[in-house]
């Protein structure tokens, strides 16, 4: 009782203070801004979502928001037609077979390289690094013919690899890895470089080798950067159509999901309503990847380790 009586006047005073009110208002403004911006952002997606449940004749003649008022004419036709394709399971499997190595290879190799760029000294280091960044600007379309030529000359074609009982996607993995390395290395090198140098010094005093520093200090501290890199690389590969068509082609045995989905429309572009359903279907896996890596984006990973 005593304690309550003693604190109450003070807390009332605190509640009514201008500082407290200002804080409340700014909290409210914050929520309004966050929710408002998010709502604006999801409008196109909501339009797509509603459209995916509408019959084509309705999509073509009225806006998606009209679906929100009666008469309701929702249908699952777009989804059932989209799911009705032959070999959808195979395509999803192929997408995983393309996307997982095409993410693991460049991220790992980039982490190796970024460590060297950030913390080792070697002749020409800065210039090699800048060349990496500059090559980020190479338009991919330009590399298709020379790389294809090289792959064909050296037997790195799906047919050949398949005949040797190797995964037919090896050429595509290498291409994706090469395309991704400039960005991956650039992002990771900048992150590694910003790590406090006393960490390394103390580790070296302890007699830890390069491998230990890399696996025990650098990688754990860079989890947020690595997680975001993995998300993006996975996404880009998962959603890629053109590179896959060039390097493995559209045959059902090897083609990823994007090829199936792009082929839902015919050569006149008819059937684009099926793409609305397809967009949500193909979004599931990237979103799961994103959500499952979310937990690595928390404050304190770095702070905690520095202290320890």
């Amino acid at each position, binding site marked *: 009782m005593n304690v309550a009586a003693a604190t109450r006047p003070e807390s009332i005073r605190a509640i009514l203070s201008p500082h407290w009110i200002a804080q409340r208002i700014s909290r409210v403004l914050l929520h309004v801004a966050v929710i408002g911006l998010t709502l604006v952002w999801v409008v196109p997606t909501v339009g797509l979502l509603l459209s995916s449940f509408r019959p084509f004749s309705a999509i073509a003649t009225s806006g998606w928001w009209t679906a929100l008022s009666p008469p309701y004419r929702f249908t699952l036709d777009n989804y059932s037609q989209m799911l009705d394709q032959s070999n959808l399971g195979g395509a999803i499997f192929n997408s995983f077979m393309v996307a997982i190595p095409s993410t693991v290879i460049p991220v790992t190799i980039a982490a190796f390289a970024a460590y060297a760029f950030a913390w080792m000294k070697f002749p020409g280091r800065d210039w090699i690094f800048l060349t990496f960044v500059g090559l980020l600007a190479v338009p991919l379309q330009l590399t*298709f013919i020379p790389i294809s030529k090289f792959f064909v000359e050296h037997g790195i074609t799906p047919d050949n690899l398949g005949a040797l009982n190797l995964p037919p996607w090896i050429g595509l993995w290498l291409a994706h890895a090469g395309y991704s390395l400039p960005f991956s290395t650039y992002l990771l090198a900048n992150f590694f470089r910003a790590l406090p140098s006393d960490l390394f010094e103390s580790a070296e005093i302890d007699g830890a080798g390069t491998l230990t520093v890399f696996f025990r200090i650098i990688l754990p501290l860079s989890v947020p950067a690595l997680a975001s890199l993995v998300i993006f690389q996975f996404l880009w590969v998962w959603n890629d159509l053109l590179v896959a068509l060039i390097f493995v*082609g*559209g045959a059902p045995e090897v083609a990823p999901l994007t090829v199936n989905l792009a082929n839902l*429309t015919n*050569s*006149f572009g008819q*059937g684009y309503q099926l793409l609305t359903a397809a967009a949500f279907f193909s979004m599931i896996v990237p979103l799961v990847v994103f959500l499952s890596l979310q937990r690595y984006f928390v404050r304190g990973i770095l702070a905690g380790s520095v202290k320890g």
Partner: protein
Amino acid sequence: MRETSVKVWSSVGLAVALVAVACGTQTNNSGKIGGTVHVLAVWSGSEQASFQAVLKPFEEQTGIKVLYEATRDQDAILTTRVEAGNAPELASAPSPSLLARFVREGKVVALDQILDMNKLRSDYDKSWIDLGTINGKLYEIFSWTALKGLVWYDPKVWNAKGYKVPKTWDDLIALQNKMKQDGTTPWCIGLESGSASGWPGKDWIEEIVLTQAGPTVYDAWWQGKQKWSSPEIKQAWQTWGQILGPNDSNVFGGKNNILATNFGDAGTPMFANPPKCLMHYQASFITDFFVKAVPTLKAGEDFTFFPIPDVNSQNAGAHVVAGDTFSVFKETPQSRALIAYLATAKAQAIWVKRGGKLSANKEMNLSDYPDDISKSLADALVKTKVAKFDAGDLMPGAMGTNFWKAALAFVSNQNELDSILANLDKIQQTAYTS
């Protein structure tokens, strides 16, 4: 030493394999060739199902597995594969100009030795074989065709208003003026088509050039020997300008709507109540778009067509056609069998029956066409005296795409015709040499 022996062994192996193949093709006890053949073509979605239906009897009879790849990005994919030396055995040829380039580079197989040419000559009109011939050799066959230069309309509306199908170009102009006086915009036009925007405008110009200036000018024009700013070609654009009306006022929605509307949706306002327009100019495939957008429509009752009148009656019976062609990039027993099959009326009839395609094969029965509209389309195709292939497709790629773009620019501002044509002239100077 080791290397030589490997070579000897592999060539022995090759010989054995060849003998096996040779025996297999002739005396295989099941009579089947077997093996696989890669095919690259543009048909995806609903069209892919139709093409695979065409392939099915072939696979059953020959035991050959067809590995079909569909891509909408045919130019990029085929070019890359061909340049890299990894071409599919068979491809639906993208555009005549790209094919001509591959022929020059020696990347395409001449069909004269592969196909029974006597049979082909008896099955197809000479003009179709000529269309596939480059430097005296046949490089592509036409499996299916589409008829361009058609005007679609709603006969019920026309009967109610008392409009008659125009017989001459002057009739057509008179009719569109009457429609305007009656208070409805005559035309529906849509030029948007993603990465190919503008091509429906190109179709207009081609048909006008062919029936106004005649086939000789038409050929000289796509071959790059006739300037865009020449009186004949300029007149064709101005004639299209007459259709569009000053500031595109003869067209529903005007300029912005022409540019922003997808070619497939363009005809739909014709079926609104009251109709927003009364005529739509498009090739034979458009019927499927009508039915998909307004499922209650019935072919023949709610929409039908007439071939657009010749601008100049001297050129009566001339029409622009387009088609689905096939070329062979690698000769194998399997690709030989498949190209021969695709040249037959039997194979073509499978897709014709499913709708949306015509065949130029004389063996094709009119009864194979699924409805009255496609029967009369096939009839119009047979009656076409001068079939000319789509000029924009025959032109080199850079010329063709700039032709589409010019159609967009012309609709945006008809007064800029002279500068549009001057620009096309400039592209013409370089496009044919590179």
